[in-house]
């Protein structure tokens, strides 16, 4: 059973963390509300990847369930905010 090498895990985690910080900067800076929602939409997808990378670092399979639950609920949240912008909900 081969694991992912440690150096690849480190470099990937640094890239994904830099992506999360950039998206959070857009979420802080964004001039209107819709910009912040777009930043949230990109942010949740990147954070799912970070959760799976942390699961690979820690080596526990139950961390993947957190990623599945977060994927479902963030989708519901983003669609709810979009409906609220459009005028429904």
């Amino acid at each position, binding site marked *: 059973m081969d694991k992912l090498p440690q150096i690849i895990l480190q470099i990937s985690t640094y890239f994904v963390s830099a992506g999360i910080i950039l998206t959070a900067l857009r*979420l802080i800076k*964004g001039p*209107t509300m819709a910009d912040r929602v777009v930043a*949230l939409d990109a942010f949740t997808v990147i954070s799912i990847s970070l959760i799976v990378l942390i699961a690979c670092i820690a080596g526990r399979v139950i961390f993947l369930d957190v990623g599945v639950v977060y994927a479902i609920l963030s989708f519901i949240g983003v669609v709810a905010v979009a409906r609220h912008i459009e005028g429904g909900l």
Partner: protein
Amino acid sequence: MELQQGIFILMGVAMIVSSIVAMYVKDLVSSVIAVGVVSLFASILYLILQAPDVAMTEAAIGAGLSTLIFLYALKRTRDTEEEND
């Protein structure tokens, strides 16, 4: 160990900054979004601290349920405020 400490410090600083954004932003829906982001950072911190069940509960309540309830409350209250004006 060093890698996890680095992620921990980075996520903690970003969590504090986004909670400050949630306090000082003008728009209420943007504030709700910032609260959801704070909840996501807290979920990642719980994951690094080896507590997956707490992280799952935090993600479910913070991302899904509280966003929906806040948006529903905003819709309801905005209607009555416009009637009063």
